[in-house]
C-alpha cells in the first residue's frame, strides 16, 4: 500500500464516517437498545440476530459528539478509538500533504507491525471478544 493510496483511502473512510455521523446527529430520536431504525447495515445481526463486536459504534460516537463520555463507553468502548481517529487522522494527513511528509504513513506501518506481534494480537483479540460478549449481554 503506497502512501498516497493509503491517504486517499483513509480520507474516503473518514468522509463516509462524517456523513454517516452527521446524518445520525441531525435526526432527533431516542436511542433504544435494539432500535432498528438507528442501525447501520450489520450483516451478522440481520442474519443471526447476534450483534457484532462493533455494534453500537454509531450511537457511541454520536453521544461522544454531544460530550457524554460515560454513555458513549456504555454503548461501545471502541467508539472512543473511532472518535479520536476520525478527528486526528484527517488533520494529520492534511499536515502530511501540505508538508510533503509521510509521518502518518509511518505511523500506520508501525501500528500494523505492532499488532502483528503474537502476544499483542492475542490480547487485542481477547479484548474484542470480551467487548463482543458485553454487546450481546446488552442486547445491542
Amino acid at each position, binding site marked *: *500500500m503506497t502512501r498516497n493510496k493509503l491517504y486517499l483511502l483513509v480520507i474516503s*473512510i473518514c468522509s*463516509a*464516517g462524517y456523513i*454517516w455521523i452527521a446524518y445520525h446527529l441531525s435526526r432527533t430520536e431516542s436511542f433504544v437498545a435494539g432500535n432498528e431504525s438507528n442501525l*447501520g*447495515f*450489520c*450483516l*451478522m445481526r440481520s442474519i443471526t440476530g447476534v450483534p*457484532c*463486536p*462493533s*455494534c453500537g*459504534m454509531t450511537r457511541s460516537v454520536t453521544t461522544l459528539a454531544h460530550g457524554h463520555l460515560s454513555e458513549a463507553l456504555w454503548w461501545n468502548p*471502541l467508539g472512543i*478509538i*473511532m472518535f479520536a481517529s476520525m478527528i486526528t487522522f484527517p488533520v494529520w494527513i492534511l499536515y502530511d500533504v501540505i508538508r510533503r511528509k509521510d509521518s502518518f504513513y509511518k505511523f*500506520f506501518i508501525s*501500528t*500494523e507491525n505492532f*499488532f*502483528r506481534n503474537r502476544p499483542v494480537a492475542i490480547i487485542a483479540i481477547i479484548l*474484542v471478544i470480551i467487548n463482543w460478549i458485553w454487546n450481546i449481554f446488552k442486547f445491542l
Partner: protein
Amino acid sequence: MEENKVDMFIMANGKYFESMQIPQIKDQLLKLDDSKWIMIQSMNLKDPTIMLVISVIVGQLGIDRFMIGDTGLGIAKLLTCGGLGIWTIVDWFLIQGITREKNLERLRQFIY
C-alpha cells in the same frame, strides 16, 4: 531448476496466482538454482477460494483482511462493522484478486 520440477510446482500451485503471471513465474523458476526448491515447496500461500469463503462468512469482522496480512485495514474493517456493510460486500468481489497479488509478492521475495 529442472523443467519438470517447475511444471510440477505450477500444476500444484497455479491457482494461487493470476493466470497472466504464470509464464513470468515459470521463467523465473527455471533460472533459479535447485537449492531453493525446498524453500519454494514449503512456502505458505493463501488459497483464494478459501479466502472467498472466509470473506463471505466472517468478512464483517475483518478476518479476511487479517488473514492476507492487511492488519491495519482489518482493524478498520472490524471497528466500522464491515464498513457499514458496504466494505464487506466490496471485499467479497476483491478478496480473490488481492489474495493472488499477495501470493505473488511472497513468491517474489523468495525467487528474486
